[in-house]
């Protein structure tokens, strides 16, 4: 219970900080929105599936941007403020504190994705329909959790480095590309497949598209052939859950290693 309480406190603390700094609007709301807008203008004359890719892509970019922001910049900020040492001096393990923050940012990501969807449908009149809303929401939630778990894995490394901001920027676009949030990953070169398939969000986005009814070329195409959409959806969700759990196990292990190393190297107070 003390750990869950610390996680809740970190969640609330992150919310206060996030809202007190208007800077978060740019990477987390405005940038994904602009990219979605440009994609919609480019694909404007196309039919449903392409438009759906554009809108979902913008939403995913917002969610991933938020996750990276939470795991990277919040630790960088702790270094700048000199609070990282104070946080590591408390009895609560750091992973629970970072997890609380990551959950807040994941929730902001949901709001971001929904805002982009709403603007696309109501303002830009994008022709979007969702074939199966419950399955769509389930896939959306699972994808979000997998993104948060992936962010937690990366954040362990951010504790050790004083270049978390640079790493955050460097990790933003490769994930957009590898997960195929704007297009089917089947159109990427074959050798990128292992990277794409090792990222849970790739599977989650595929499940979202299947649930929305826009999956003429699924994740499996080009690898294992065409599957029945419902079978493909079920496999996608199972893989997302398993991978997210694996990310959490890896994150717990890495945070233990990083905690020990940070105290051995003695660079926690350095900016």
């Amino acid at each position: 219970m003390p750990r869950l309480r610390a996680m809740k406190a970190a969640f609330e603390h992150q919310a206060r900080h996030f809202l007190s700094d208007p800077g978060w609007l740019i990477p987390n709301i405005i940038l994904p929105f602009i990219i979605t807008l440009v994609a919609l203008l480019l694909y404007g004359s196309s039919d449903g599936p392409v438009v759906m890719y554009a809108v979902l892509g913008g939403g995913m970019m917002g969610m991933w941007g938020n996750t990276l922001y939470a795991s990277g910049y919040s630790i960088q900020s702790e270094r700048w403020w000199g609070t990282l040492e104070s946080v590591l001096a408390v009895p609560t393990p750091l992973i629970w504190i970072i997890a609380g923050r990551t959950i807040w940012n994941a929730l902001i990501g949901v709001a971001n994705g929904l805002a982009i969807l709403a603007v696309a449908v109501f303002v830009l009149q994008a022709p979007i329909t969702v074939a199966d809303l419950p399955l769509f929401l389930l896939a959306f939630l699972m994808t979000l959790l997998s993104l948060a778990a992936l962010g937690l894995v990366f954040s362990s490394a951010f504790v050790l480095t004083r270049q978390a901001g640079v790493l955050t920027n460097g990790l933003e676009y490769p994930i957009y590309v590898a997960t195929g949030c704007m297009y089917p990953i089947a159109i990427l070169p074959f050798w990128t497949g292992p990277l794409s398939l090792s990222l849970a969000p790739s599977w989650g986005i595929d499940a979202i598209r299947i649930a929305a009814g826009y999956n003429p070329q699924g994740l499996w195409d080009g690898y294992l052939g065409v599957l029945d959409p419902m079978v493909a959806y079920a496999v996608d969700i199972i893989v997302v859950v398993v991978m997210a759990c694996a990310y959490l196990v890896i994150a717990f292990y890495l945070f233990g290693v990083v905690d020990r190393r940070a105290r051995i190297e003695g660079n926690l107070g350095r900016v």
Partner: protein
Amino acid sequence: MPENVIEAQELVRIYRSSTGFLRKKKKETLAVNKVSFSVGRGELFGVLGPNGAGKTTTIKMLTTLLTPSAGTAKVLGFDVTKDPVEVRKRIGLILGGERGLYYRVSGRQNLKYFADLYGVPLQQRDRRIQDVLDMVGLSEKADSKVEDYSRGMKQKLHIAKGILHDPEVIFMDEPTIGLDPQASRETRKLTQDLINQGKTILLTTHYMFEADELCRRIAVINNGKIVAMDTPQGLKGLVRDTAVIEVEGFGIDDKVMDRVRKLDGVRTVSATASESKQVMRVQVCDAGELLSPVTKALDCKVIDVRVKEPTLEDAYLWLVEGHA
């Protein structure tokens, strides 16, 4: 419960760093070298030393923020490397300086966050926060953002944060650094109040009068080693056979100090500046014999020359200049 609540045995800390990219050069810096001491329950123990002496590194090892390279340390019977979580539950860390606080939220929100991270019982949390705010005198500004606080108010918040979970042992790392005289005095009073409540405190400081006023015992650390450990009176006794010639004037620079330092019978020379004038303190074996040579060596405008009894600062200077 153990009699000594802090025990350091032969503590060593080596920092390893490297420079260069293709041809990396590794460098090792010995920051703390076989430091041993113990602090009794309810004692205020001071660690004095110049910048880079190893004071903060020692505190960081005792508060589990740094892993010792060798040696052992126990706080309340718990080993800092084997039972770090048990140590963290029972200690408070008070840092000095502008950093270490969340500026964009209020002081109360800072405290609420740390109360949750330290697991202060929920039923007592808000009451406890108000109590520590009252104790440090920050209640009126508790709901203002920390970025609007003065330096002294930030230090009060540091203290409130460090005692929030009612720790038995408190580590204070230069808590009065950069504070104006009034804020420094308030901080010293708060420190004394904590001792009166039965807390055990380890305090590092640069300020001799602070250590003299507050500490029961003092360890002087220089180049990572403890060069002396005694009561303030005991340390002053190290320079019992010394007198101090204090010169107040204008234009007391390094050249003047070097000339004085070269005189036979001069032990240490130090100077402090206030506004445009300087005060030079010259430790000598025999003030009567050296008063005239020192005065003659002064190629500057002299306002006053006095002979004084040695203080803790004189003992400290004597120690850190390698006379131990």
